[in-house]
């Protein structure tokens, strides 16, 4: 069979191929990205979407957890303050109940406890970034208000029982708040405010009904127990949040590594390919230069 006389045009086709190959490799080298279009690696392109989705979720959780951890810290420190105040109130009340104090001292205890009551109420009305943190879902309403119409005074809760959770990327739920009623109102007579209001009423006159005062002091101790219990919930949330953040950070590192492996160009490999392709191109150009000389036709040999 004869040779295709237009072999030069076929060689030029190969040359085009080599050049487009070089362009592609150069683009990979300069951008550092191995996959510039979906068709280069469809599976990796799909995988990339999923990886980026996870990385971004992790990223967003890290930001949320910073925000939330501030709120949880504020709640914890407020409850810490409440515990300190209540402990002091109990010790004052215990001193007043043993019958050794005179009327003036007892009235002074009453007014000190009244001050503690105000302080506790202000702590219970703690807000974070303008939102009351012990109000359940009613974060824009002052959760605890005291009415001075009766004796003892009555402190009411204006919030609700709503509990917010933050979901971690792997689906775990972290409790973000404890409703104020659960912390401060306890069950029935175990209310912090009822106990404090009663004690204030007990000591206001200077004469103490010891039985009543002891029972009210007892109630305050129980209420303190509730506050401490609920503070543990907040502390648990802080611990969980820290653990989740750590897990998310390490998962983010892994995912970013995987995504980099998937999409980044391997510079050493691409450089080798580029150099190979350039050698090929030079060889082709030499061949074409030699073949394309008209002097190579048999006509030039005829005289």
């Amino acid at each position, binding site marked *: 069979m*004869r040779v295709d*006389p*237009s072999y030069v045009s076929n060689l030029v086709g190969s040359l085009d191929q080599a050049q487009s190959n070089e362009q592609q490799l150069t683009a990979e080298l300069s951008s550092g990205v191995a996959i510039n279009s979906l068709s280069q690696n469809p599976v990796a*392109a*799909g995988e*990339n979407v999923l990886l980026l989705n996870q990385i971004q979720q992790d990223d967003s959780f890290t930001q949320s957890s910073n925000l939330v951890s501030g709120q949880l810290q504020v709640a914890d420190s407020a409850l810490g303050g409440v515990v300190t105040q209540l402990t002091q109130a109990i010790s004052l009340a215990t001193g007043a109940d043993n019958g050794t104090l005179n009327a003036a001292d007892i009235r002074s205890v009453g007014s000190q406890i009244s001050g503690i009551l105000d302080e506790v109420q202000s702590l219970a009305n703690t807000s974070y970034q303008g939102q009351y943190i012990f109000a359940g879902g009613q974060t824009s309403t002052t959760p605890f208000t005291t009415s001075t119409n009766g004796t003892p005074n009555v402190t009411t809760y204006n919030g609700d029982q709503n509990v917010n*959770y933050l979901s971690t990327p792997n689906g775990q739920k972290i409790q973000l708040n404890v409703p104020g009623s659960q912390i401060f109102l306890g069950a029935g007579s175990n209310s912090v405010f009822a106990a404090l209001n009663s004690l204030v009423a007990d000591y206001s006159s200077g004469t103490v009904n010891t039985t009543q005062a002891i029972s009210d002091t007892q109630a305050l101790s129980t209420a303190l127990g509730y506050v401490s219990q609920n503070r543990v919930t907040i502390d648990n949330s802080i611990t969980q949040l820290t653990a989740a953040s750590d897990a998310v950070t390490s998962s983010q590192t892994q995912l970013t590594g995987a995504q980099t492996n998937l999409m980044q160009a391997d510079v050493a490999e691409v450089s080798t390919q580029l150099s190979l392709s350039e050698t090929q191109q030079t060889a082709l150009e030499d061949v074409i230069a030699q073949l394309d000389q008209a002097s190579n*036709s048999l006509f030039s040999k005829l005289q």
Partner: protein
Amino acid sequence: MGTINSAFSLISGALDADQSALSIVANNVANANTPGYTTEIPNWQENQPVSINGVSYGDGVTESGAVSLRDRVLEERLDQQQQLASSSSARLTALNSVQALFVPDSGTASATAGDIGNDITSFFSSFASLEAAPTNSSLRQEVLSSATTLAGDVSNAAASLNTQRSALDQEAFGVTSQVNSLTGAIAQLNQQIQTTTPDGNAGTLEDQRQQDLSQLSQLIGINQVQTENNGLSVTTTSGQLLVSEGSSFQLTSGPLGGVTNFFVGTTNITAQLASGGGQLGGLLTARDQDIPSALNTLDQLAYNVSTKVNAQNNAGTDLAGVTGTAANPLNIFSQPAAIAGSAVSMSVVMADPNQIAAAAAGQGTGDNSNATAMANLANQAIVGGQTPTDFYSSFVSTLGATVSGVQADNTAQNASVTQLQSQNNALSGVNLNDEAAAMSTLQTSYQAASQVFTILNTIMTSALNLGTETAVT
């Protein structure tokens, strides 16, 4: 060799034949680079021998005309392969423009602008952030701005797809007139070939017809049928007659259902042309299958995300304590009426970020359970049985696989075309070395014949002078 005279006629015949063969070589060399030219070889014929007294005397040779070296089967195979290659090449070009809209995010930049996958994640993540502080106005604003980005990118992508589709439509429309002028030319050449050379080799006329056929093969899918007297009929691959010997039938086009449709006579052959091959086939496949399928995917994504997010937002309470109702809905996205077209029209209608219902219905504004529910939509199978991200991921994988498949087809078909072209060139192309060798042989033959002629001349002179030697120069 009966007489000296007959020897003269034999030799002059040889000189004529060599002369004619040399002119064929010259013609070949002159047309070595003419597109579509088929190399011609001289056809030698032995003259009828003369029989005298039972002895047979040879009567020399004549050159009876050039014969083109062509293989019709090879040429037809080349045309068919060319149709496939042109089709996949036109489709590949269209698909490359489509996939350019969905460039994978390399992750080196914080986020590539226009990456719908990232937009989906950002949008649902903004709800996850809102969980942390449901009343925070900057987080609420973030939800709306990420929703705007998502809607903008989806509708931009859909609008670009529509533009690409109309560009393909225009291009396909433009092919019609080229097809018609080629079929007209083929019909005319048929007439000429049938009248001038009904039996023999049509030479350059047939070269021209073959050239037109291969051009036509680049445009649409055709079948060729040889008819009597060297004629040719051309049909589309689906069998619609385009050229019947001397007459051609026009391919016409007209709008139908928003796109250009193609007709022969009154028969609509758009669908057949799409699967037939050629550039038109590729353009129509991209116009009627690939782009509508990508658009439909975006439509589904836009429709489901918009309706599901709107429904969830209406299920909660916004910062003002309002819950959406049928009469006064709290819609984040414009509510699409139907799946078709929802990608193009995807937009954010909510202007006030306080209308985002982070709290569940009936709960205080500090509640975040509806924000959680919205964020959870990201992990629910709300689009075509998949989560939005999974749906988008499988969309880009499928699109990439389609492009890559067409690319592989195109490469293989082009290689096959090159190979067939090579085979055809090997047979029909002008090989200058061959021609040089032939010319050299013919020259030598011509010189030998003229040498014999000189000798005969001497003999003739000698005979005329009755044996007396005379110097002949």
